[in-house]
């Protein structure tokens, strides 16, 4: 009994020790964020306060326009609270973003045009389709590169070059080209998403398929194994750990690609569209909540891949 308790206590201690630094960092970030809200929003807050009849240190929005925000903030402590509660702040306070996130995910019906779940799903579906296309394409390219010298010499430079082109520049062209042949919506976005995610898969898989040692390949030769036998029994299983590393990078890139694909066309649905309409109408709280939704979605997707990775590698006898 005592041993069990000691073990549990030790585990508890360990958790506290792990959680504490994380919480400290989060607290510091939130502290800086709240602090930044005051000078960032003080001018708007003062204008609104003046309109409501309050007296402020320097009357008149025009007079205040070129004044130091920090100076104004220090001169008007009474308006600090207002800087955290503006409808269209320059920098929304953390709790404003949190409330907006809550309202647009949990409280809105998911069929609503203002539900982040609805917009998130639009982006997620393009992300997953693009990720699937990018992964399959990347693996096929890697297999070709590893087995054909001509492909090794010719494909890799193009693959690298493709990633040096800013996706923001190429995305509108893909949308326009597909639109002209009558393809709209999901597919063009998925293609932009695949364009970003295939690259890490190619690089990782080429390395993975080449990871068997010279000894292992010699061993195959002594058994008279064909190229395809070596591929299925040695190269492919050896590449699995490399593949998962690439997939984690790839899925995050896919999400980015899907969002970028929503920007240039003035899309009305998707997380990209929320970012876009938010900036059209100065809805900073909407922009920030869409940004956070994106980050949470990306973290979730990477966590899912990491989970599959852990289970797969354990079952394959790795990691011991």
């Amino acid at each position: 009994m005592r041993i069990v308790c000691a073990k549990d206590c030790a585990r508890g201690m360990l958790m506290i020790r792990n959680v504490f630094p994380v919480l400290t960092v989060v607290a510091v970030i939130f502290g800086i964020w709240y602090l930044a809200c005051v000078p960032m929003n003080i001018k708007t807050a003062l204008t609104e306060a003046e309109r409501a009849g309050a007296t402020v240190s320097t009357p008149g929005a025009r007079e205040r326009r070129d004044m130091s925000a920090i100076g104004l903030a220090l001169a008007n402590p009474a308006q600090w609270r207002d800087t955290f509660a503006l409808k269209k702040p320059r920098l929304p306070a953390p709790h404003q973003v949190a409330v907006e996130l809550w309202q647009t995910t949990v409280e809105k019906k998911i069929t609503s045009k203002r539900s982040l779940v609805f917009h998130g799903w639009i982006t997620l579906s393009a992300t997953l389709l693009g990720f699937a296309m990018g992964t399959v394409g990347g693996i096929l390219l890697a297999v070709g590169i590893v087995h054909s010298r001509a492909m090794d010499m010719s494909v890799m430079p193009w693959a690298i070059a493709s990633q040096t082109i800013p996706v923001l520049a190429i995305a509108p062209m893909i949308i326009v080209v597909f639109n002209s042949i009558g393809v709209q919506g999901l597919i063009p976005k998925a293609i932009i998403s695949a364009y970003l995610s295939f690259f890490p898969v190619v690089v990782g898989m080429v390395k993975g398929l080449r990871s068997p040692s010279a000894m292992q390949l010699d061993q195959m030769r002594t058994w008279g194994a064909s190229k395809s036998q070596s591929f299925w029994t040695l190269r492919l299983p050896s590449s699995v750990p490399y593949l998962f590393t690439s997939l984690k990078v790839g899925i995050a890139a896919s999400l980015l690609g899907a969002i970028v694909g929503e920007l240039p066309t003035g899309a009305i649905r998707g997380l990209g569209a929320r970012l876009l309409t938010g900036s059209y109408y100065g809805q900073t709280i909407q922009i920030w909540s869409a940004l956070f939704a994106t980050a949470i979605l990306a973290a979730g997707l990477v966590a899912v891949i990491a989970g599959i990775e852990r289970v797969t590698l354990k079952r394959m006898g790795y990691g011991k």
Partner: protein
Amino acid sequence: MTMTDPSPVISAKGLDLTFQTKDSPVQALRDVNLDIGAGDFVSFIGPSGCGKTTFLRTIAALEQPTGGTITVNGMSPEAARKARAYGYVFQAAGLYPWRTIAGNISLPLEIMGFSKAERAERVEKTLALVDLEGFGGKYPWQLSGGMQQRASIARALAFDADILLMDEPFGALDEIVRDHLNEELLKLWARTGKTIGFVTHSIPEAVYLSTHIVVMSPRPGRITDVIKSPLPRERPLDIRDTPEFLEIAHRVREGLRAGHAYD
């Protein structure tokens, strides 16, 4: 080399092998002449770069000679490979972590197209041969280094080749495990009557195991001496303390020193 069998299993005549490197060609083997008879246990010993591993790889058609001839069972090394004449054991066990021990031993059999039933039967048989009964379902990480190397020997034996080529198979193991595996290997050799080619760095290991010890020397890689062991085939570990054993060990050491005399 002294021959017991009129038709040697492995025969090298005037074998040369030169590697082309960037700065200058390297003579890995020069004028190697050697006959290995059926059922012999032949050790190759010498310092790094003497060509002992290269010679073993040439037998296995992993290297192509640049001169001379070599035959395995009267065939070219490539043809012998196709006829499944030899099993090759590398320095590292090289078991696939994603396959069980049985799955690893079964791998060459799968590649060679044995039926499922026959694979299962052969895996059982070879597991027993290396004293690993009951470990077929385990994964490599669950086995000690010595057991892993035994599994890799089982894998090389699974398709019943007459020749077993071993490239420093126990080099990475500690002395106690190595002694044990040497004993086991001798038992296995007695039971199966296979012809064994064995590369090693260790003089006691070579003397303890072999019927013939081939002493090699570097730059260029060549054979300097072939010692036929007068020890009986049955060898308990304490044979290593007998005067006969020490005398052969002394001769091997002298041979190695002579090969090094010029540098």
